[in-house]
């Protein structure tokens, strides 16, 4: 195989891995949108908040230490303990479930029946609030998150693929990040678990019933409030997984919350209401933007990844307005 072909292959492989991560974030959106019709812009900030809480819990930071110091003039920073990763994750999940309960109780209970745009704006307000809240709670410095995931490139794949190149060509093998591979495996496990949960458990069935028709679900005795808290908790859990993956890769910092913007074109492509759509859409966007940047990017000045996904999704939607797997839009007067 020629080196150029192998390079393209490498770009595609990396695009697939990036796509899996996009799909992971998009999944959180789909879960909430299906069950409650809320387009949750705060999903990205939830990932940031979850990752921050995890770091804070593991390092034993004192929550709100900046605020406490400013108000009382004290000098508190750390409790002085270090939690193991698993305990920290368990604690963070508890925090995210509590968060889901609070959000449902304080905000969306009062907004039932409002127009979608109002709900959407409420989630943007929520995103602002959580951004400020997270940084007040844990500080705005860039934190390193280490839950024991492997870092760096994989030498095994590099050595193995180096032998693929044709004789006499200078080719040094593919660079594939270990973390990306772990993320892919985790994402696949997570999606399978979610599908199993929604197909075979009582709560999962109730969740699907609510997604199908609120009023019908209510009339057969399903507790809507409980389901919504459950869905927000699940989305919080997905956000935590996404936060761990992105946080281990590039540190826990504000830019982590911008992954929500990466997930939006994925949603458009796949359809807001479809879990398989989120995954396929993520893969298409991941591969597409990496290939475009590789092939065309150098001619137009690079950094095309910022907008390519959106333009691709836009062009695609003109031909299929409900996305790849979205429910067919039927309009009646």
């Amino acid at each position, binding site marked *: 195989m020629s080196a150029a072909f192998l390079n393209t292959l490498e770009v595609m492989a990396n695009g697939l891995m990036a796509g899996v991560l996009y799909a992971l974030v998009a999944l959180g959106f789909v879960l909430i949108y299906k069950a409650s019709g809320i387009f949750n812009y705060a999903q990205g900030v939830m990932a940031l908040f979850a990752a921050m809480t995890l770091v804070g819990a593991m390092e034993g930071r004192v929550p709100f230490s900046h605020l406490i110091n400013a108000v009382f003039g004290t000098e508190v920073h750390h409790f002085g303990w270090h939690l193991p990763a698993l305990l920290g994750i368990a604690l963070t999940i508890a925090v995210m479930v509590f968060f889901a309960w609070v959000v449902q109780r304080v905000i969306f209970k009062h907004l039932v029946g409002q127009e979608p745009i109002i709900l*959407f704006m409420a989630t943007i307000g929520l995103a602002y609030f959580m951004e*400020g809240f997270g*940084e*007040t709670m844990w500080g705005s410095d860039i934190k390193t998150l280490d839950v024991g995931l492997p870092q760096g490139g994989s030498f095994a794949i590099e050595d193995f693929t180096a032998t693929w190149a044709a004789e006499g060509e200078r080719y040094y093998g593919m660079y594939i990040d270990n973390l990306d591979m772990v993320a892919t495996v985790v994402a696949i496990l997570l999606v399978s678990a979610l599908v199993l949960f929604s197909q075979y458990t009582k709560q999962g069935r109730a969740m699907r019933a609510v997604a199908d028709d609120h009023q019908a679900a209510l009339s057969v005795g399903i507790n809507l409030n409980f389901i919504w808290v459950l869905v927000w908790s699940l989305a919080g859990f997905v956000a935590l997984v996404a936060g761990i993956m992105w946080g281990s890769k590039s540190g826990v910092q504000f830019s982590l919350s911008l992954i929500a913007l990466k997930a939006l074109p994925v949603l458009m492509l796949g359809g807001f209401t479809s879990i398989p759509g989120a995954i396929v859409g993520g893969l298409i966007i991941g591969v597409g933007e990496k290939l475009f940047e590789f092939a065309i990017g150098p001619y137009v000045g690079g950094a095309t990844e910022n*907008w390519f996904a959106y333009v691709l999704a*836009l062009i695609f939607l003109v031909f299929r*307005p409900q996305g790849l797997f979205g429910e067919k839009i039927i309009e009646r007067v």
Partner: protein
Amino acid sequence: MLYREAGDFKTSYTDDGQTFPIKFDRIGYYVALIVAFAIVPFVINDYWVNAIFLPFLIYAIAAIGLNVLVGYCGQVSLGTGGFMAVGAYACYKFMTGIDIWIGGVQYALPPINIFFSVILAGFVTAIVGVLFGLPSLRIKGFYLAVATLAAQFFLVWLFNKWSWTYNYSASGQISAPERGMFGVPVTGPNTEAWATYLFCLVFVVVLALIARNLTRGSVGRKWMAIRDMDIAAEIIGVDPLKAKLSAFAVSSFYVGIAGALFFSVYLGAVEVGEAFGIQKSFLVLFMVIIGGLGSIFGSFAGAAFLVLLPVLLKNVLVSGLGWPTDLAAHLEFMIVGALIVTFLILEPHGLAQLWRVIKEKLRLWPFPH
């Protein structure tokens, strides 16, 4: 008692069709105009103009523009920041003189007066807005909202990479040279507070009047029909192509003018990603929603609210309590977010609805029956 709609008789169609048919509104409007034109310019200084009046006036234009699109025509747009950037860069090119390369020869137009540069920038933005509005004929609702993000990211990227738009300057920034009206500078470093204020105020008043009359007339009614239900509107004879694209054009025209003023008069120098990022799109959308969808008065109220709030918080937290600025910035985020959510829960129809409720009360006050 105070606010009366009854007893205000009209004897001609012209009277009945004027911009503010109710006497109380009309008096309020004239009082506001007199205060804005005859009193404010004499009492303001640089701090007031730069911290409050200029951002308020400019955001009010942007909010009116977005309100035309979102509030009146029902097409949610998150590309406001990108369209403001188009206005800013177009204004920059017009005020420094556009250069065109044809067959290796450079032709340069002379610089255009700042007033007309701003208006031309509005027209350029309107064209770009129509281009990005084309998908709205196929895509609806949230899909469209996300699709307009394509405009946001693509335009910001374009102005970063296309060096012709920033006259090949090494820093990639654009900075406004000194330009003026009637010999009084309104852009550049040597401006007077009252001059910049009046320059923006003229735009605001004229554009707001046009918007109010557009939305009262047949064009506005078509937009509202599309907003309420586009299929039904089509059946009663509203052409969705014309209605949607005209809404995009008018909205982008306003947003473009806001962007041009934001760059040339208010900031003076602009880096596109920083000044016209996605945060700006959300900010203007917040103004529209907090102020009230489908209300010109609401656009002003929303702009005033979101311009004043951070100034107030900063003065209380940093100057008043002496807290570190980064902590105050975080708390500001929390407070703004919490206020927005509270607002949406208590009054989803915005400040304009609040004003309507007050009018209801004033009608009866002080006698409850």
